């Protein structure tokens, strides 16, 4: 419990820092949002200036930052310059798609990577092992956006097995999830394989074999349990990268997520949206980090004890 409290405590300055960086970054972009908003309506310079004042853009930066913080503390992320909807609404309506894709990619990574690693580790040096290692080596190396384009061309356009763009069904998730998850499957394959090989030589398994217990049961039990920590750690910390990958992959597959939305928002200097997005993502990362720590602490009692020292 003390562990949790202490982690939360140190998270506060981090979150504060994130809000500051978010604010500074978006304001550093050249351009006047007021004239972007009014572009095309033949507004006079006076009208543009009036809108700037209305949006509070001509106040000193410090004042604007304090206002931003105050708003945040009230749970208000602001209103999008482009659509006049709340930033929360804009982000919430698009986030699920990206998150679903990221999670699906993780599922693919686990479902493909772990068995492959098991198969390879169980018989190191054999053809199965070579093939698995080769696939995993390639999987890490091929860029997921390239893989996505190739998969769509082959499986969707040529063979018509799977939809080319998101059709709202799980079938439409397969190609994007596989393109994105393949690389992480490769990582997991290597990780699990290494574990199995080590565990095979370890005390547990040797004594189990000596005692006559099924060495496979012991192997799987211990190896999986012990590789779960680094696996969870890796995936948890890669979640940021996976989300980024999801944001890019979803554009190729016509999924309505955060990726292209944020890109357009930056390109049009939609200050509330970009600020809000960076803050939300940053806080999300901090929370995920905390969750990973908690899960690892739960799985491995030693770490919890160590933390209590």
């Amino acid at each position, binding site marked *: 419990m003390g562990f949790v409290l202490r982690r939360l405590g140190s998270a506060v300055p981090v979150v504060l820092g994130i809000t500051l960086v978010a604010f500074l970054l978006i304001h550093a*972009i*050249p*351009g*006047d*949002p007021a*004239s*972007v*908003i*009014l*572009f*095309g*309506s*033949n*507004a006079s*310079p006076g009208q*543009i200036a009036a809108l700037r004042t209305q949006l509070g853009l001509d106040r000193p930066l410090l004042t604007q930052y304090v206002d931003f913080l105050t708003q945040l503390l009230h749970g208000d992320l602001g209103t999008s310059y*482009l*659509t*006049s*909807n709340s930033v929360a609404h*804009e982000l919430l*309506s*698009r986030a699920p*798609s990206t998150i679903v894709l990221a999670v699906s990619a993780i599922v693919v990574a686990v479902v493909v990577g772990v068995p492959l690693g098991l198969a390879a580790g169980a018989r190191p040096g054999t053809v199965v092992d070579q093939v698995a290692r080769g696939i995993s080596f390639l999987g890490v190396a091929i860029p997921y956006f390239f893989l996505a*384009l190739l998969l*769509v*061309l082959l499986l*969707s*356009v040529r063979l*018509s097995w799977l*939809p*080319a*763009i*998101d*059709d709202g069904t799980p079938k439409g998730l397969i190609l994007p999830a596989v393109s994105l998850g393949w690389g992480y499957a490769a990582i997991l394959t290597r990780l699990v394989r290494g574990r199995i090989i080590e565990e095979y030589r370890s005390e547990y398994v040797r004594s189990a074999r000596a005692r006559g217990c099924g060495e496979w049961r012991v192997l799987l039990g211990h190896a999986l349990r012990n590789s779960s920590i680094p696996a969870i750690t890796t995936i948890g910390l890669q979640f940021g990268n996976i989300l980024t990958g999801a944001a890019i992959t979803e*554009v*190729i*597959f*016509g*999924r*309505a*997520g955060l990726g*292209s*939305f944020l890109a*357009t928002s*930056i*390109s*049009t*200097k939609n200050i509330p949206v970009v600020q809000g997005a960076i803050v939300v993502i940053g806080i999300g990362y901090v929370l995920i980090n905390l969750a990973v720590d908690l899960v690892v602490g739960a799985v491995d009692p030693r770490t919890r004890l160590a933390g209590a020292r």
Partner: protein
Amino acid sequence: MQVSPEGQQATQVPLPREGGGRLGLSRRGVLGLAATIGGGLALSPWLTACSSDADPASTAPGTPGQAGGTLTVGIASTPDTLDPGATGLALTLLISMAVFDPLVWWLPTGTDGAGDFVPGLASSYKVSDDASVYTFTLRKDVVFHDGTKFDAKAVKATYDHVVDPATKSKSGLGALGPYKQTKIIDDYTVEISFKEPNAGFLHQQAAGNFGIASPAALEKYGPTGFGNNPVGSGPFKFDSYATGDRLTLVKNPDYVWGPAVLGSGPAKLDSLVFRIVADDSGRYNALQSGQLQVAMNLPPNSIAAAQKTQKFTQLTVPSIGTPSGMPINVTKSPTNDPLVRQAILFAVDQDKLVAGVQFGVNTAAHNVLTPITPGYSKPASATYAYDPVKAGQLLDQAGWVMGPDKVRAKNGEKLELKIILFSGGGFELPTQFVVSQLAAVGFAATTTVQPFTTAQVSYNSGEHNLGSFGYYGADPYLLNIWVNSDAIKSGFNWSHYDNPEIDKTIAEANATADEAARDALYEKVGQTLMTDAIYLPLWDVNGAFTMPTAVQGLHPTFNGYITFHSASTGS
């Protein structure tokens, strides 16, 4: 055949009117600009768009097409709002023309694609002699999607809503211009008046920004909420919108007041879905896999590939406007020298660009206006036939001497151009072609691509020699938007062209009621702009729609879009 620029005489007009001209303008938000410039296509040699007989996709009304079904249209950008009166994006008008009706339609359905005024929600109209007061007599049988009866109150509510500051209207507000008020004369007569003569109003109100909205819905949802719950009187009703993903419209079974040329009765389709697929390859892949029945603005290579398969029809809708091209900054060296600018224009072979890089899918542009724009000057288009030798001579004349590294120099300074493009406009490849053509006559160039806000700042501060631009409109008065000297500091005048004479001529044209006289003025303006070489035109702006051959019944408009009143999937 292309719509003839002179054929703008309204032919059979089933409504009485006095005076009035056909001036009008429709402003496009810049975000629509960026989205709609890319993938501009022109008439392909074996398909034409605007004339109803030659266009296989634009079937004559009454041709039996398959009833029912859903048509899914793939579009490239996300609407900012679904309220046509508030939107700043051109693309929203494609959608709003299915949900709303204007008072009067202006369509390219006359002979040779000439423009026709066709009754919409107004059965007739009158224009005052000075074109500042418009009186409309309204239909009595129209009902909005929410059951509200249509009458003069609705018209007043719609127009007042556009100018209401709470609406935060972008394109609509600008297009309305010197709006004074809407007066209700009686239940079915309404008078819209302007502070100054506004002969262009009829074109403006037909372009899509002023679809008549249900006053009850405006009241219920508020000025900004209406954008999430649009209620009109059109052939399709708004059903649902998943943000950034898909917009679903369903048939309005009570629709009987549509113009006959578009298909007067209720729509054939059960539902119309707009699916947002920003990625070009995603849109094309989805068209091939059948997930989309219409793909909008595919890149030229995809269109060429689609045509090769012979399974798809290509509908190209020319638009009034300024062709996609490069504004030339007249205040920055070396392009501050007219000889250098003219050399640029002689050095670039637009026909080769379009035939090669764009697979012949676009039409080469040689003018500041597209050919179907009223006031288009044919002679002006001939000013700069491709002539690299002449370009070289002009540069020699200007004192730029060819150096040993194939780049010209003068007084120790190299002939270097700074090119700034904004991303998402489809200019990357054509610009590289332009650069290689310019290199052949001794120019050096650096090209930068910037996101839109950054590019806007660069253009307004004049950092560039060449930029990127294109404009969809409904009237030649659109020239005022990017030629007027008051649009230099903040606006579209990215050529930094400061010519008060031209400003005056354009204003004069917009106040001229007589069509022929007005056209003559615009033609003069066009010729001057070409002679002063402030713009390098590249390809004409068009809307491009690719669809399997079974899809029928799509009718073009004047601004590069199509209507779905009689669309059918034929499957």
